């Protein structure tokens, strides 16, 4: 399967397409083949220990949120990785674009004075 996919990518590249375009195309084909368009994509967040934040661990397809929770339990916590799971419809996530990150995060990049290390204090009082 993996080899097949690589071969597929290579052949697309040889035809002069970019890897990304080829991959996108492959992904769309994959969706068509598996006929999973009736299942929605969910993002899975795990809290590994009480007191810690939920962290994103991956995604899965499910019929509804309850089902997604059970799948997430089966797929992502087989070894006691978590004490709490959140599932969120992928479509409900509004994300910033990495391609735009330069301009998006620009307002804070030139303000080093927001960092504690910007202030040089003499050794005697430097443990502040």
């Amino acid at each position, binding site marked *: 399967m993996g080899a097949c996919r690589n071969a597929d990518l290579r052949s697309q590249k040889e035809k002069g397409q970019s890897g990304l375009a080829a991959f996108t195309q492959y992904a769309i084909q994959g969706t068509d083949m598996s006929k999973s368009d009736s299942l929605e994509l969910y993002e899975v967040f795990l809290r590994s220990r*009480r007191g810690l934040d939920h962290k994103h661990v991956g995604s899965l397809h499910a019929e509804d949120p309850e089902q997604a929770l059970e799948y997430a339990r089966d797929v992502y916590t087989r070894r006691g990785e978590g004490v709490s799971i959140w599932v969120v419809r992928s479509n409900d996530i509004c994300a910033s674009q990495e391609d735009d990150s330069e301009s998006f995060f620009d307002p804070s990049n030139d303000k080093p*004075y*927001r960092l504690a290390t910007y202030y040089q204090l003499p050794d*005697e*009082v430097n443990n502040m």
Partner: protein
Amino acid sequence: MSEDLEAKFLRKIEGEEKIEPKDWMPDGYCKNLIRQISQHAHSEVIGMQPEGNWITRAPSLRRKAVLLAKVQDEGGHGLYLYSATETLGISRDEMIHALQTGEAKYASIFNYPAQTWADVGAIGWLVDGAAIVNQVSLQRTSYGPYARGMVRICKEESFHQRQGYELMLVLARGSDDQKALAQDALNRFYWPSLMMFGPHDAESAHTAKSMQWKIKRQSNDELRQKFIDQTAPQIDFLGLDHPDPECKWNEERGHYDNGEIDWDEFYDVINGNGHCNRQRIEHHVRAHREGEWVRAAMQTYEARKKKAKAA
């Protein structure tokens, strides 16, 4: 049933486990948290006023940018804390209402005016310094969202104290007038900073229960002592006079001894008679009212976008 739940809750507390928003918790625990976290949030937001007053009068562009960034942080910290409080089922509107009607308190220190530029230094160094001592301890509080908020805030807050001390250092090493300005700011902000930790443990209304539930991890007096101990050498290094003539190192205790706080002043300010109590709330009410059209415009725009999408 309810006994089981309470026993389970106490077992978690006992075992140093965090309580999370959807866990069962006693009513008193929830109320106590709402009171403390919202009071903390209000303090961040009201705390923007005394310093915000100096942004346009900062002596250099560098100092202005730094102060702006600091005040901006305080607003952000208010947001973290309001959000943490909201996980307990109270709305932002209810909290703002409680603040504006005086039903909820905020740190009394912000009822003192920032009269000179040196006050900006003293506030960063002493007021934020005292807040950090308290907040470092609260990183271990038993309520998960509050604890995580504290971790985030402590990470950001260290620059507040350092920029304040750096400012004081420049003044203390400056002309006689500048040094006098620094001494005056220290004199006025030292005692109110000690009061920030609240009344003595024996007189503190909420301490016992809060400690049992591990909302608070160290008592008012313990935290205050920590602050006194860390501040004394810092005053010394600036070459300024200590505002408390009784502050002496006690070899036996391994701590600095200190003179008694003027508790009449403490209660007077809490009860609304500080220099700026009325002004702070009036300003908050006015700013909130003046922002009304922005909130209304956002909602109208949102409704129009939804309508356009549906059509």
